């Protein structure tokens, strides 16, 4: 399928080519579809870029100085002059990203072959000169190793979990499938056997975890989403809030559909909300600096939540 070429800036195209040409030089001949997929371009965009490279060269424009690109059926191969046949050094951004990824991976529970990764990181440090100037801190949770083991063995486990969406603690029978770190918290993707659907659990809200001793056939379980994350779009309500400056943190801390300034100080945000208790908890933390604009049914939720907490004190 041919995707229409996007308008791409010259810098983006050249930067891409400076990575592509040495990559191609190392492989000599590749499928154009595979190459397009590797570089996240449409076949049309890739063909345009490679054709562009074929027009380039330096005086006296002898074959030795020209990049020669050949297309044959679904394959492409090249003859590349010396100048473009070696990979470029990593930019600071690339080195930063690679170090951040490697350091974070080292902290993942059950990280395979961490000695090899640590040694690769040492070599990367020599290559990039980013040493102890960059520190990545990953939260730890005492349940992580156990959960990683359960994910690996398709174990059925029971867990006690406090859910902020219901504001209650319940016991669930689940099959842990994947653990993931997002920001300051670890999460567990598990199949909740009570409803036979995937659910996300914040690991630090699991108060008890018990192995049933049973192993479940993974083939019989519903599939998880490809990427871990909060797939709330299908169920979430859109709630509009007006935030005074002392509550602007809401827009930084939580995903928002949109935000805009109203006047000098007020920020209007539209948030995805999956439960009233969750929104009530947010509102009571923000205080009167957050006002629900819509839907109307949540207009007094902050005050109601405050009254509920206050009942403890009176």
């Amino acid at each position: 399928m041919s995707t229409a070429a996007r308008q791409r800036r010259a810098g983006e195209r050249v930067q891409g080519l400076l990575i592509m040409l040495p990559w191609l030089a190392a492989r000599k001949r590749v499928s154009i579809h595979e190459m397009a997929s590797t570089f996240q371009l449409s076949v049309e965009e890739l063909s345009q870029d490679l054709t562009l490279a074929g027009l380039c060269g330096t005086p006296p424009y002898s074959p030795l100085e020209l990049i020669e690109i050949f297309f044959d059926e679904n394959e492409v191969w090249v003859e590349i002059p010396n100048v473009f046949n070696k990979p470029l050094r990593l930019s600071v951004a690339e080195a930063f990203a690679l170090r951040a990824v490697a350091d974070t991976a080292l902290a993942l529970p059950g990280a395979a072959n961490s000695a090899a990764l640590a040694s690769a990181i040492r070599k990367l440090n020599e290559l990039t000169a980013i040493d102890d100037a960059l520190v990545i801190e990953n939260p730890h949770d005492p349940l992580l190793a156990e959960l990683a083991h359960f994910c690996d063995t398709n174990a059925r486990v029971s867990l006690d979990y406090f859910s902020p969406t219901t504001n209650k603690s319940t016991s669930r029978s689940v099959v842990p499938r994947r653990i993931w770190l997002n920001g300051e918290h670890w999460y567990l993707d598990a199949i909740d056997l009570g409803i036979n659907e995937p659910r996300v659990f914040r690991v630090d809200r699991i108060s008890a975890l018990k192995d049933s001793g049973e192993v479940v056939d993974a083939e019989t379980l519903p599939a998880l989403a490809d990427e871990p994350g909060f797939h709330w779009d299908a169920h979430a309500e859109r709630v509009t809030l007006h935030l005074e400056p002392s509550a602007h943190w809401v827009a930084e801390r939580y995903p928002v559909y949109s935000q805009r300034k109203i006047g000098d100080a007020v920020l209007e945000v539209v948030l995805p909300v999956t439960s009233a208790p969750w929104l009530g908890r947010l509102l009571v933390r923000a205080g009167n600096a957050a006002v629900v604009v819509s839907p109307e049914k949540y207009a007094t939720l902050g005050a109601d939540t405050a009254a509920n907490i206050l009942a403890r004190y009176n």
Partner: protein
Amino acid sequence: MAGVARDQAERVLNLIALLTENSQPLTFTQIRGALGANNYADGESGRATFERDKALVRDMGVPIEKKTLGGNQAGESSYRIDRRQLELSSVHFTSEERQALQLALAAVHIDAAWADRARLKLGLDVAEGETLAQAHLPVNSVALPVVTEAAQNSKEISFSYRGETRRLHPYGVLGRGGYWYVVGADQIRNAIRSFRVDRIEGKVKILDATFERPQGFDIQAAVATDTEMLGEGAEPTMAHVLINAALAPSVLREFGNESVIETRGNGAVVVEVPCGNEGPFRSWLLGLVEHAEVLSPTDVREGIKNWLSDMQKGGAQ
């Protein structure tokens, strides 16, 4: 071909090739002579085009060296690209190291194309299969590589933060809890300070001044954790907070078992936590909604009650 203006991508690729191929620096006149008028037209417009292309090449991280000539070309600038500065130094990963890096790249998702470009430059493949433990690293500021580069090269930086200009000797960059902080010696306030990188306004400038990072400087200790921030107030006050059984395990993971001063029969605990910093303490406490209650000190308890009463009334704070 003459007379057909080349598009910028083609010109820039030609320029990089020319400046890399030649071991001697070239003046703009020589560059125009070599690449022809269809790359750089005669007169000022050609010069302006060259300046734009040169800026783009530098923005892409390709280092163009500039040298000012003497003799009969005195004052004229000449340019070259040092291949050694352009090309990746040779690095040999063992097959285990390659595999480990490929798995790391599959397990940790970073919000930028940077890691993918690095992978392609290093000739690493995409790891097959799914990893059971994954992480998402948000990259929410283009300033991140700039401040990291400055920290790495011990170069002073200046930037605008909350409307004020800061000059900082950046000792390092810390990734914590989904945020990135640049930490160092604030040259205006003459104190160690940390700044959230995504809150930096506009561009970060790397200055010429250099510095030496104090030996043993602890980047992590220099940035207060959320828990430490609860106590960052004028007075080091501690609060006693009753936590219901449902949330006790979660609170103990945050503050440690040593914070417990009383265990009640129903699984509830009383913990001692810092509360000197009113806003963060209140936000933490109310995040536990009716599952937590401040017992003491009285003024902190009354402060929470007043906050809740004001909310209940919908009145102004």
